[in-house]
């Protein structure tokens, strides 16, 4: 093999590796592939390889077309690229059949004179008449008569052969990358599959479900995870049929897709576990699932006849009025006419009446289409993945910058300069550093959207099992929340949403009897309120029954008497461990576990739950969470010259007791009487074990703190003030220190310790005991 062939070979190999992980729509990688192809072209031009040259030219034009968005079916384009590169490798090895290259190029419309497009472009704007899905806005779910145009795409291409040839050693990095990516893909499939249930013919949404499967298939094949590869392939195939318009995705086939996602998720996690434990992967039985896929596929063609109505949210009439293209009245008249002639579309009527120009109707349709598509596009937000440790490092450094800046500004010599320019510059510097800190903090925040969207599935599955009709409304999905909080918050949210579906919303029969709409509504809302994030879980169900809850609580011994308990206090009993009012224990909820998780997590996240309920009208749970876990609102106190921070949430009040309010028990246990209640006195100095001047409580200050309903008075020397501090871990080797929850860098650059109130109480008891 000569040098050129060697270079060509290695270029092709690199290209194959890149194409293997290429994802439709990934412009960054597109660019890399293109530059690779250009390199290849230069070398191929010098070498005597006409076939390879033609192939490269063809692939390059395909790639360019894909980058410019001229190739309508990007996934198909990626397939073609993969096959093309594999063919190139075969050509180089002399294994290709004569004429195979020309055939390959011609089949994809990549022959030298051919255009880049591999398929006929789909109709960009459907012709206005006869195409307009425009039922009257008032009418209940009037079926639009417009089936989406089915582009005649090729049937599924065989899986890329090159995948079999490329099997480098399974190394950890690749696998971890695959696992992370695949899980993300599965998540987006889930979201889009649910979207697909409403708009089963939307090509964009089908594509958004199809492509991730394709990627998972490709990479799993590359990593030799054959079972994952096969299942992903089967699912991909099914969706490809849907894409080609041969199969309509009904609720049943979406169930199959979702079941497939679940199995794939397990398989992928298993592959990671197995790799880490260095054991064989557990085999999964996917035959049942594959049989379901087959069943869907074989039933597909018949299903086409009775297509379910798609319900695109924006109506043409509304769009036209909103855009100011057609007056409201004309639309109403046209709608009236449409009611009498349901076979005519709104667009046709409007044009025939002269109320609108065909071009205006066309524009309205275009807008309508874009609005429907916007829902899918939103799923792919623009983001960069960053290792969280890097982010934490950045946060640390910015924190230091702020301190350094304030130290320079506070330097007496600098302050003595009395230079206007200098003080203006320092003020500017301070603004910049503060902004920088805010921005860095904001980088830890993610929209709550993803968590909310996971609930769509939870509601759907729970409601299906219960035979209830439930609609989930999401509000304020863009609300941002601390990334670390999102993970911890997920489980409780699932429990609360399930609880609403399971216990909150009545059965369909009950709802009918009480004159409510059959379909129950659960609303998830997120918003910011006064430095906190609020999340609401609202249902229009039967509401909480105070008497029933109380009866149960008394029976279970959770409370001793109902006397003097407010409604909210009663409602909160449902969060107690072991509480359950459901008459029937279902496999979903009702075992009394779950809701107490909510309470526990709320404590951990320093949040709280409010419950409002109206019997027969519904219940609203409002969860209030701090904006971020990284910052704590603290009360800085001084004890024997050292500063300590108490979480403000735990602080009840601070005061200087009078001498007569102080008493001792058996000469040792010190107590303070505060408004008629005796509270134990904790000498913080003794608990933290530092030397200092012994003081009496009436000479100094006590801070009353509360934890789990227990109150103690902490004896401190001084209250310095309230301050928001960034919580820092003291590191693994000091994890065992129970009295301290963490450290914080104070304004002078020194470390201040954040006290753990529970730990302080325990240490105090240990000293006394």
């Amino acid at each position, binding site marked *: 093999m000569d040098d050129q062939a060697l270079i060509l070979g290695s270029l092709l190999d690199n290209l194959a590796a890149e194409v293997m992980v290429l994802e439709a729509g990934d412009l960054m990688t597109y660019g890399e592939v293109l530059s690779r192809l250009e390199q290849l072209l230069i070398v191929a031009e010098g070498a005597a390889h006409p076939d390879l040259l033609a192939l490269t030219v063809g692939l390059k034009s395909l790639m360019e077309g894909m980058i410019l968005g001229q190739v309508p079916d990007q996934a198909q384009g990626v397939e073609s690229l993969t096959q093309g590169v594999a063919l190139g490798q075969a050509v180089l090895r002399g294994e290709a059949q004569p004429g195979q290259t020309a055939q390959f190029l011609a089949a994809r419309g990549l022959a030298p004179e051919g255009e880049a497009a591999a398929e006929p472009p789909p109709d960009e704007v459907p012709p206005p008449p006869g195409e307009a899905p425009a039922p009257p806005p008032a009418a209940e779910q009037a079926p639009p008569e417009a089936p989406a145009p089915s582009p005649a795409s090729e049937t599924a291409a065989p899986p890329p052969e090159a995948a079999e040839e490329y099997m480098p050693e399974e190394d950890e990095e690749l696998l971890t990358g695959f696992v992370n990516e695949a899980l993300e893909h599965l998540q987006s499939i889930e979201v889009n599959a649910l979207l697909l249930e409403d708009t089963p013919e939307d090509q964009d949404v089908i594509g958004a479900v199809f492509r991730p499967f394709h990627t998972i298939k490709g990479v799993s094949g590359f990593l030799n995870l054959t079972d994952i590869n096969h299942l992903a392939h089967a699912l991909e195939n099914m969706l490809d049929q849907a894409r080609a318009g041969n199969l309509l995705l009904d609720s049943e086939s979406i169930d199959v897709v979702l079941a497939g996602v679940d199995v794939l998720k397990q398989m992928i996690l298993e592959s990671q576990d197995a790799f880490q434990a260095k054991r064989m992967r557990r085999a999964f039985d996917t035959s049942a699932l594959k049989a379901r896929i087959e069943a869907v596929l074989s039933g597909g063609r018949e299903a086409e006849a009775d297509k379910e109505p798609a319900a695109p949210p924006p109506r043409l009439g509304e769009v036209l009025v909103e855009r100011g293209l057609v007056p409201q009245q004309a639309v109403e008249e046209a709608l009236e006419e449409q009611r009498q002639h349901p076979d005519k579309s709104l667009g046709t009527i409007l044009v025939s009446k002269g109320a609108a120009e065909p071009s205006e109707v066309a524009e309205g349709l275009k807008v309508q289409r874009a609005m429907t598509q916007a829902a899918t596009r939103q799923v792919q937000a623009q983001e960069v993945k960053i290792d969280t440790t890097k982010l934490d490092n950045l946060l640390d*450094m910015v924190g230091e910058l702020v301190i350094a800046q304030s130290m320079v500004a506070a330097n007496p010599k600098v302050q003595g300069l009395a230079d206007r320019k200098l003080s203006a510059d320092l003020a500017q510097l301070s603004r910049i550093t503060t902004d920088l800190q805010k921005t860095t903090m904001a980088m830890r925040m993610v929209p709550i959207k993803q968590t909310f969207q996971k609930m769509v599935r939870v509601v759907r599955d729970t409601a299906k099992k219960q035979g209830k009709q439930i609609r989930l409304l999401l509000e304020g999905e863009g609300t941002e929340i601390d990334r670390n909080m999102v993970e911890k918050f997920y489980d409780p949210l699932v429990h609360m949403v399930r609880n609403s579906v399971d216990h909150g919303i009545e059965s369909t029969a009950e709802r009918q009897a009480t004159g409510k709409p059959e379909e129950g509504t659960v609303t998830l809302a997120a918003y910011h309120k006064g430095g906190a994030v609020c999340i609401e879980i609202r249902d229009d169900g039967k509401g909480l029954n105070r008497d029933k809850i109380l009866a149960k609580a008394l029976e279970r011994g959770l409370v001793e008497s109902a006397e003097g308990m407010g409604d909210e206090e009663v409602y909160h009993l449902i969060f107690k461990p072991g509480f359950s009012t459901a008459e029937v224990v279902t496999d979903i909820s009702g075992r009394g576990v779950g809701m107490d998780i909510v309470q526990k997590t709320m404590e951990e996240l320093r949040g709280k739950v409010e419950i409002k309920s109206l019997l027969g009208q519904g219940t609203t749970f409002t969860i209030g969470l701090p904006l971020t876990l990284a910052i704590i609102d603290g009360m800085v106190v001084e004890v024997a010259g050292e500063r300590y921070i108490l979480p403000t949430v735990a602080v009840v009040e601070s005061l200087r007791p009078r001498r007569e309010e102080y008493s001792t028990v058996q000469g040792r246990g010190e107590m303070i009487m505060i408004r008629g209640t005796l509270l134990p006195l904790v000498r913080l100095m003794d608990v933290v074990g*530092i030397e200092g001047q012994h003081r009496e409580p009436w000479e100094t200050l006590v801070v009353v703190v509360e934890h789990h309903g227990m109150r103690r008075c902490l004896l401190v020397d001084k209250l310095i003030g309230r301050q928001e501090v960034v919580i*820092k871990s003291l590191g693994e*080797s000091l994890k065992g220190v129970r009295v301290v929850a963490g450290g914080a860098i104070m304004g002078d650059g020194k470390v201040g310790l954040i006290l753990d109130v529970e730990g302080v109480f325990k240490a105090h008891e240990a000293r006394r005991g």
Partner: protein
Amino acid sequence: MTSEGMAADQSTAQGRSSLMALAGKYLTFQLGGEEYGLEILKVREIIGMLDVTYVPQTAPFVRGVINLRGKVIPVIDLRRKFGLEHRDDDERTCTIVVEVQSGSGQRLLTGIVVDQVREVVNVRGEDIEPTPSFGSYMDTAYILGMAKVDSGVKILLDIDQVVGDSQLVLA
């Protein structure tokens, strides 16, 4: 008899090769009248004395925590750890920040306070002697071996044992 002799030979041979593996660059520092060596790869940086915040419920040899450019790390007083008499810090006292792997594989940064940092020496394998046994009155678990270099004998510290394994927190 012969088999015992052979076993002894073998164990010394093994000891020799593990000592040879210790060859490399060491940062040396002074503690009392003795000089110690730290594997240079474990040293992250050398800093002057920073303000230390005392942490409750910790072992007496833990001075507390410092702010290392925004990170909070523990600081150990090596004199106290080794049972040497107390000496006030002076301008030569400094903190060596070392990085070791914790039991769970995390990177742990820890500061160790020493009297004075000396130099970086290259220690050859053949210059390393095994730790002599001092009987039960002295714990030599923290010592890798003794290095004979031009400037004298250096005690090579097993820093992972000193900071990684030690119980910083009082039960």
